[in-house]
C-alpha cells in the first residue's frame, strides 16, 4: 500500500513539475508563433521559421533519446542525472514543443476580427496578448493544458523505465519483472483514474469559463 502511495506521489511530482514548466515556457512560445507568423500581427519570417523548425525537431525526437541526451542538463538543473526530479527535465523538454503547438492553435482560433477590433481601438501588443488573446482563448488553452498533462502522465510512466519511479515504474518492476499481476493492475488502474480525473476536471473548467 505504501509503495502505491509513494509511486503515485512520484508520478504527481513528475507530472506537476513538468506540466508547470512546459506550460510556462510553451505558452509564450505559442504566442510568439502566433504573432510572428506570416499573416500575424508582427510578421517575422526568420524567427518564426527557426522556432518552427526547432519545435518540429523536438517533437520528432523519441522521448527515450531525450532522456539520455539531456541527462547532463538534468544534472546541472536538479543535481541528479536520474531519479524522479531529474526526469522532470526531459519531460518538460518533450512537452514544451507540444504545448507551443497546442497554444498556437488555440490562440489562432481567436477571430481575426476580434483582434482587428482591439487594434483599431489602439490596443498595444502586450495588452492585446494579456487582455484579448489569452482571455478569449482561455477555454481552448485549458483544453490544451489538459491534453498536455495527460500526455505527460503517459511519458512519465515510460520514464519509470530508467529509474524515474512513479506508477509506470512500479507496474514494470513489480508487476512485470517480479510477476505480480495484481501490482500491475493496481498501478494501471491508478494511472487510468489519474488521466480520467485530469480530463474531467479540464473539461469542466473549460466549460465553466466559456461564455460563447
Amino acid at each position, binding site marked *: 500500500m505504501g509503495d502505491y502511495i509513494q509511486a503515485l506521489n512520484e508520478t504527481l511530482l513528475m507530472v506537476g513539475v513538468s506540466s508547470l514548466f512546459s506550460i510556462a515556457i510553451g505558452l509564450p512560445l505559442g504566442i510568439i508563433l502566433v504573432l510572428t507568423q506570416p499573416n500575424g500581427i508582427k510578421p517575422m519570417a526568420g524567427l518564426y521559421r527557426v522556432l518552427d523548425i526547432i519545435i518540429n525537431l523536438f517533437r520528432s525526437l523519441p522521448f527515450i533519446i531525450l532522456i539520455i541526451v539531456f541527462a547532463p542538463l538534468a544534472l546541472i538543473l536538479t543535481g541528479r542525472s536520474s531519479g524522479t526530479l531529474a526526469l522532470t527535465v526531459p519531460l518538460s523538454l518533450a512537452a514544451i514543443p507540444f504545448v507551443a503547438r497546442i497554444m498556437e492553435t488555440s490562440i489562432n482560433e481567436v477571430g481575426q476580427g*476580434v483582434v482587428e*477590433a482591439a487594434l483599431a481601438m*489602439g490596443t498595444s501588443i502586450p495588452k492585446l496578448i494579456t*487582455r*484579448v488573446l489569452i*482571455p478569449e482563448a482561455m477555454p481552448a488553452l485549458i483544453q490544451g493544458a489538459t491534453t498536455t498533462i495527460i500526455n505527460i502522465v503517459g511519458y512519465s510512466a515510460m520514464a519509470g523505465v530508467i529509474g524515474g519511479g512513479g506508477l509506470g515504474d512500479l507496474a514494470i518492476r513489480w508487476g512485470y519483472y517480479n510477476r505480480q499481476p495484481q501490482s500491475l493492475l493496481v498501478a494501471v488502474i491508478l494511472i487510468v483514474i489519474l488521466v480520467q480525473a485530469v480530463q474531467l476536471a479540464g473539461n469542466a473548467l473549460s466549460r465553466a*469559463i466559456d*461564455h460563447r
Partner: protein
Amino acid sequence: MLELRNVNKTFKTPEGSIEAVKDVSFTVEPGEIYGLIGLSGAGKSTLIRCINMLEKPDSGQILFEGEDLALLSAKELRQKRQQIGMIFQHFNLFEQKTVRDNIAFPLELHSKDKAAISKRVEELLGFVELTDKINAYPSELSGGQKQRVAIARSLATSPKLILSDEGTSALDPATSILILDLLRRSVDELKISIVMITHQMEVARRICDHVAVMEGGEIIEQNTVKGLFLEPKHPRTVALIRSLDEERPLSEISAFAKDDVYRLGFAGGEVSRPLISEISRRFEIDINLLAGDINILQDEQVGWLAVTFPKDEPKKVAAALAFLQEKNVHIKKIVPNGSNTSEQADGAENDAAADTSDDSEVRGGDNNG
C-alpha cells in the same frame, strides 16, 4: 475632418500584385456620413482599413484633422485610434467578456479610474438602449443587440470619427434600420462623422450624406446621395443602382404586359402630386399600374411607377408623356426580357435580391429622362 489624398494600396500575392486601392481621394466633413459603395472586391474594405492604418497605404496621405496618420509613430497612432471608432459586419465583440467589459475595454486601455469608467459604460448603454444587458455575454444577445454593444464600444472614447465596415450587412432589414437610425442619432447628437462601406444601396440611400462608388479599387463617381441616386453619371453606377434596385423585377413584369410599359421616375414634390389620375383624365387614356415604390433619400421622397399605356392610342400617349416630361418626370420605356441586348449586372453580392434565375439587366429603349 478627414481627407484622403491619392491613396494607393497594392497587395503582393504569389499570383501577382493586386491593386486594391488606386489613387483614391475624398473628403469627409464634420458631422456627415460618407458612404463607400461597391460590390465585393471593389477595394472598400482595404480602403476603410487604410483610414485607421490597419492597412498601411503604399502612398498617399490620410489627413485626420489635418494630421497625416502615415507619419505617426506606433504609440502616437495608438492614441489617435482612440479618436477613430470602428464597427464591423460581424460585430467582433470579445466573446469572453460581458457587455460591460466589452464597452469598458477601450476605456481601460488608458484609464484606471474605475468609477469614471463604470459611469461612462452606463451612459453609453443608455444611449444604445441596452441598460438591462450590462452583465450579459455576447452569445446571449441578438445580432442587433450585439451591434448596439459594438457601437457603444466604438463610441466609448468619444471619437470624432466612426468607421463602419458593412455594419448592417449581417442583420435583417428591420434590425438594419434600427442600427442605421442609431448611427444617424450618434452623428446628430454627438457631432461625429461616419465613413461607412456597404454593398447595400438601401443603407447608402437611407443615411449617407455623400456617397462614393468604388470599382476595381477606384472611386468612379462621388456625389451627394441625392445627386448620385437621381442622376448617376457613370454607367457602372447606373448599373449598380439598377441591379440592386427595381429594374430586374420590372423587366419581368413587362414580359407579361400586352401594352407598352414605361417607368416613370419622380423626385421631390412630384411624388405627392396626383399626376397619374391627372393625365388619365386630361388625355383620356387608361393607365394600368403595374408596380411602384417610394424611397426616401434623406429627407426627400423619390419614387417610381411602372405603368402601361394603351398601344392603340399613340397620339394620346405621346401627348401624355410630353406632359409628364414637362413636370420633370423621368420617363423610360421598358423592353421585355429577351427582345434586346442585355448587359450583365454583377449582382453576386446582392443576396437580398435573390434573383438567381436571371442576372441580366434590360436597358430601356428611348430614355427621355
